[in-house]
């Protein structure tokens, strides 16, 4: 009797374990996987464009772009670009410009517009791979600090998204039909990689700059992108002050100087009138640089000194009767180039002072070199102290050789 009781007890113990195990497994199957979403069902947002709404009235019969939000007006238009997944064997015949999809929504809350777009397409927007973010100039001049809060707060977004400003409508950039097959956003974002070779636009500006601007009161510059006739181009730079408002532009030729002030110049060319024959030009190509930017405090005033040695080649000599190796000639070219570079630097500096926005991070330099002084002035740097600062420039150019021929 005892043995069978024992046996019974053992059986139920084993059955209990088995039952627990089965229950556990069943919970797995029944409740499902909360986060599972197949890779082709995600809407990879590659580019985002923010414009003002042209007119807040409903458009079309059903007003597809309207965002339901319980507070806020219909202020901004958000446009998303997503790549179109189609089997590779078919894309050869499909005409170009069909490789992306555009969705838009209008409202004030970026989050709400985003979610509204999920009612238009079953692949809900997925921001992990976003490449660019474009603002129209109108929106930029109004101030974008509050708009980008959603982008900074969301865990999915990347801080490395590249920012651009465009003088016209931002959605046109995304909708444009370009010559290449890639999505516009990817193309434009890769374009910024050339900032080293061609310092004619303000380099890479990333979402992180917005965050820094809001928190540590720094101004920054953002490249301007324009599109026309199936071509896209990056030009100039838009200057944003520490309130994330666009206050002006910096020209292409001044960007070289700005990069020197920031010490981020990599390569670049300077075109000067050719001393041998002023009707023609000569070009200097920079390939090595030694830049030193210092700040000095004198009587509560800041003096910046820039000392740079730029070493390069004579890239182009359009007066070919002139022997390019001739040292006298070289010296005059060097002088001309130095003058041009100095001009560029001074122009960049004064432009910033004029706009009351320190985009070349000279304030950071002061902070690093004179922390005590910086503590006093950092709240009024952009408005008061920086516009009063002086600049001393000393550029030395050295032309090594005219590449391979005389």
């Amino acid at each position: 009797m005892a043995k069978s009781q024992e046996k019974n007890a053992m059986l139920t113990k084993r059955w209990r374990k088995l039952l627990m195990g089965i229950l556990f497994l069943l919970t797995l199957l029944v409740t499902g996987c909360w986060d599972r979403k197949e890779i082709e069902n995600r809407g990879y947002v590659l580019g985002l464009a923010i414009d003002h709404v042209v007119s807040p009235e409903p458009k079309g019969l059903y007003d597809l772009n309207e965002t339901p939000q319980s507070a806020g007006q219909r202020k901004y238009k958000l446009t998303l670009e997503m790549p179109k997944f189609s089997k590779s064997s078919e894309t050869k015949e499909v005409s170009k410009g069909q490789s992306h999809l555009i969705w838009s929504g209008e409202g004030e809350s970026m989050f709400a517009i985003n979610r509204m777009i999920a009612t238009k397409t079953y692949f809900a927007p997925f921001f992990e791979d976003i490449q660019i973010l474009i603002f129209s100039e109108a929106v930029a001049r109004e101030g974008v600090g509050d708009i980008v809060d959603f982008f900074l707060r969301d865990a999915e977004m990347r801080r490395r998204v590249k920012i651009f400003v465009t003088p016209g409508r931002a959605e046109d950039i995304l909708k444009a039909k370009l010559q290449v097959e890639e999505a516009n956003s990817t193309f434009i974002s890769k374009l910024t990689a050339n900032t080293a070779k061609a310092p004619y636009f303000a380099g890479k500006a990333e979402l992180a700059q917005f965050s820094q601007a809001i928190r540590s009161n720094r101004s920054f510059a953002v490249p301007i992108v324009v599109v026309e006739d199936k071509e896209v181009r990056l030009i100039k730079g838009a200057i944003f002050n520490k309130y994330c408002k666009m206050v002006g532009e910096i020209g292409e030729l001044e960007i070289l100087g700005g990069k020197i002030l920031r010490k981020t110049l990599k390569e670049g060319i300077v075109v000067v009138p050719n001393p041998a024959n002023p009707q023609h030009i000569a070009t200097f190509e920079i390939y090595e640089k030694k830049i030193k930017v210092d700040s000095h405090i004198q009587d509560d005033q800041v003096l910046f000194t820039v000392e740079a040695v730029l070493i390069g080649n004579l890239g182009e000599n359009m007066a070919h009767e002139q022997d390019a190796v001739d040292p006298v000639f070289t010296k005059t070219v060097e002088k001309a180039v130095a003058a041009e570079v100095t001009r560029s630097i001074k122009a960049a500096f004064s432009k910033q002072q004029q706009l009351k926005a320190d985009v070349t991070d000279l304030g950071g330099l002061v902070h690093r070199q004179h922390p005590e002084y910086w503590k006093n002035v950092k709240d009024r740097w952009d408005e008061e102290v920086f516009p009063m600062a002086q600049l001393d420039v000393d550029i030395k150019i050295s032309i090594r050789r005219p590449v391979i021929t005389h």
Partner: protein
Amino acid sequence: MMGWDLMTNHNTTISPMQFFVIAVNSMFGSSLLTLPSDLARIAKEDMWMPMLFGSILIFVAFWVAVKLSAYFPDVTVIDYHVLLVGRIPGFILNVLMILLMMVIVGIFERNFTIAVKTYLLDLTPPQVINIFTLGLAIYAIQYGLAPLLRLQQFLFAPEYGAFLTIILLGVLSIDANNYQPMLAEGITPVLQGMIPTWFTYTGPEILIGFLFPFINPKKGVLKWGIFSISVTACIYVMITLIVQGILGPTETTNTIVPTMMAYRYIEIPDTFIERLDGYLMTIWIVISFTSLINWLYFIAFGIGQMLKLESSRPIVVLIIPFIYYLLYVPPNAYAIQIITQWVNFASLFWGLGITPLLLALAWLKAKRKMPC
């Protein structure tokens, strides 16, 4: 009482090198994810210094704990508390210590769940993550110290190898400007910053009390313990330096989980190295798990010893509901911050306040016993 071990029949002794593994594993918890933000707030550009000097505090606490245990080489901390101060105060001390450990585990696990949810699985209910982790922990702890140790040794090289590889990839994105100016405000913020780092380093000074009787030979304990703290300090300082270099002090202050944010930021164009935070989080799961099982094992062991049980196996399952309950006590992020600060102070007080007192008491008692 020597060689008492849970759940296995033969006496287990461990070597100082194995203690090193346990100590390193228990120090690495999930607190490192959020710590740089506190440090940046206090010390700004010098945020790596408090991390480095905070280890000195732990050195001191560890040394004190080892010396105290050396007075009682055959018993664990549960027993020598009673031996030193009497039954009732000793019992109270033990209970406090176990409670402290449980709250530490609760905070670790909560932070871990939040990090996993934010960076890996967004919509999964946190209960699932907890049940999984705690369930696996029960399985791991049941069989005693030896399998636990083997698991940690087995995983040590691949786990930390992968971890260090990912961490070091962060060096590629740092901006040297973020490190200057150094010591602009003087040494005070650095000293102030050392206090919140205690929570990241806590581990060996409590665990040595439990493990001391089992370590054989006892000669190398201090050496290997200090070595473990230094290794951990190196890795922590490296992470802090990299986070500081990538984000800069102001950003770090304003991000809730700066470590993940920094690793998200790394991008080397035209290569596949993008968004390292996912990989980091995956390795972090392994690291957090090994840390968790260490703490849980010693909690169960401590309770078992307090109740004078032959084997602590049932305790392991019984404490899990407590821990699970503790996990859901704080309702939001702010509450977690407050609790973390409290726990920080409590364990600081324990390590640098109560333990030296006990050491002094033991020294006095020993002196009295010796003939003049």
